[in-house]
């Protein structure tokens, strides 16, 4: 068991392509940490540096108490599961799992026991004599997993291990992975581009974009308190809606003014965080679930009026595609009802405690609900 520390880690390819920039993470012993981000953002590169498959261009990585920058992968006490599983096609399942142990010169009986135990744990004992070619995708995935766990390493590394499975299998395997981790309690670093996977699996999530870490936090915090506009947009089952506008103040109250289309009164709690930004262009972000149909009791200046285009009933809820007069698209998730008007102007209310205001730009910081560790006691 071990903790993993990344200090100012960067990766430079071919002396000019900076694929990963200044990553600092402290992974505690037994933690399940998930790297998530769009494809090409540098997740795999980071993971492969931890594994020792890529040279570390800058910074240091430690596993346990040792800096491992110059340590050969085999001596880092890690195991890795690859996206394509990387099973040796010419070896049986048994040999695939035993290979690493054989190279470590464990006694025959010990190897046999470890392999069979792991196989039983993963329910692949009946496949041990087959070659990878004769396995289904899910079975291969389990064998790859088995090959990793027999080694009883200090750290598990996963690089998109589920992305070659179909949707249903992916869901069940996800649960099993979680259970497995609860049972083995091995430090695990997991890379995925799928934010649902990240949310469900991780103790903490590292959101990356363009080679940089955007936020490190628990799944709930990342969801509720996205550090910046990118994280807000990336994390969550339905994408955040954004409105571009200017912050104005009148009568001691703040208003978010999006041109002609909306003028939204902001709650008093935001005031201290926004005081320095009056007159600035900002973006207002809110999830579809932060909207509901306006009731007469709601104050007029917390409502927005949208034209409904399409209703998609989801059961308890319904997703409503709407547009502002200027064409800005907004998705609302509301309580389902039969006779919801389509092609009509409808008033919605925003739940202000779920509304975020970001500085301009793709990575504009969250001003009103920043992550706790940056602005600890303030806000809400």
């Amino acid at each position, binding site marked *: 068991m071990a903790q993993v520390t990344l200090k100012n880690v960067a990766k430079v390819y071919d002396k000019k392509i900076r694929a990963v920039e200044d990553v600092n993470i402290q992974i505690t012993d037994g933690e399940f940490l998930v790297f998530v981000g769009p494809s090409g953002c540098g997740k795999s590169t980071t993971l492969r540096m931890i594994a020792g498959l890529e040279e570390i261009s800058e910074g240091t990585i430690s596993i346990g108490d040792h800096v491992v920058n110059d340590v050969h992968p085999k001596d880092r006490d890690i195991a890795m599961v*690859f996206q394509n599983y*990387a099973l040796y096609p010419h070896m049986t399942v048994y040999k695939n799992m035993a290979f690493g142990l054989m*190279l470590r010169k464990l006694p025959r009986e010990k190897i046999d026991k470890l392999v069979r135990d792991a196989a039983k744990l993963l329910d692949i004992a009946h496949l041990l004599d087959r070659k990878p070619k004769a396995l289904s995708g899910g079975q291969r995935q389990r064998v790859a997993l088995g090959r990793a766990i027999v080694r009883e390493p200090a750290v598990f590394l996963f690089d998109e291990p589920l992305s070659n499975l179909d949707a249903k299998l992916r869901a069940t395997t996800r649960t099993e992975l979680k259970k497995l981790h609860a049972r083995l309690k091995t430090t695990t670093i997991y890379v995925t581009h799928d934010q649902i996977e990240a949310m469900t699996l991780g103790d903490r999530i590292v959101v990356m974009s363009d080679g940089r870490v955007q936020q490190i936090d628990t799944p709930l915090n990342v969801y509720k308190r996205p550090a910046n506009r990118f994280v807000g947009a990336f994390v969550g089952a339905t994408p955040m809606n954004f409105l571009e506008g200017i912050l104005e103040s009148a009568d001691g109250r703040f208003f978010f003014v999006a041109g002609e289309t909306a003028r939204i009164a902001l709650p008093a709690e935001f005031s201290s965080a926004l005081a320095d930004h009056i007159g600035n262009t900002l973006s207002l972000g809110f999830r579809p679930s932060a909207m509901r149909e306006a009731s007469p009791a709601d104050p007029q200046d917390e409502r927005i009026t949208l034209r409904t285009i399409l209703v998609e009933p989801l059961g308890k809820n319904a997703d409503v595609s709407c547009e502002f007069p200027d064409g800005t698209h907004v998705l609302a998730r509301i309580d389902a009802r039969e006779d919801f008007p389509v092609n009509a102007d409808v008033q919605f209310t925003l739940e202000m405690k779920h509304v975020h205001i970001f500085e301009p730009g793709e990575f504009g910081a969250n001003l009103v609900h920043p992550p706790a560790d940056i602005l600890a006691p303030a806000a809400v």
Partner: protein
Amino acid sequence: MPNPPTPTRVKPSTLAKTLGRAVIVALLVLLALTFIFPFVWQILISLSALTDVDLLTQTGFPPALQPENFITIFQRVDLARYFFNSFFIAGWVTILQVITCSMAAYAFSRIQWPGRDKVFLLYLATLMVPAVVLMVPNFVVVLKLGMFDDYSGLILPSAFSAYGTFLLRQFMLTVPSSLDEAAAIDGASHWRIFTTIMLPLARPGIIVMAIFAFLFNYNSFFWPLIITKTANLRVLPVGLLQFESSYGQETPLIMAGSLLAMLPPIIIFLVLQKYLVKGIQLGAVKG
């Protein structure tokens, strides 16, 4: 209701189709016969008595079969020796080429080292240089190294093949790199990865390369001709030609020897043709 459009093109009738296929099969068979009959003819000559060859040409069959020719040829000329030499030389060249080329291919496909791509480019560039350009300087090199008229002069110059290295490198590149990464994490050294992962996985490529190397060297004529003078070192092509130029009229014996010399390639091809066909096609796609 408008009528559905009537089809303008009618599918050819099954009869026409069958007829067309019959014509194609007939062509295939006739062509096959143009390749097979000459060899049947060669077998007939090799089974005839020398005095019967004229009659054979008139009638198409010898009056008496004389399979002893296949034994006589071994007595008249040191065919056993030529066979041994051909197999010995082609065999050693093949073994050495497999070793040197697969190792080099591994270095070119699996290890990162500065200058790697430049050196590989140099290998590629030499592939464009025709063999005749190398003939004379290699002759001098062999002369100077004291390998003239010696097995080493026949084996060593062919033991390193730029083409084989290229072929195997291309083949190894198709093996996913995550496999050797997995092996590295499992604790395997480069040598270990090479022997237990790469060699087994590149086996089809290595077999192709080995067949090419063997057949090419088994058939090779120019180089053995200029690099040997002792009769003991003659390979099959050189030995057979020597026999023919001294006993040109003994057609049945010559044909028997030539048939025997053709047997190994035929057997190799029939047994391994799956690999060979793939290999020829692979070389082109990648080349």
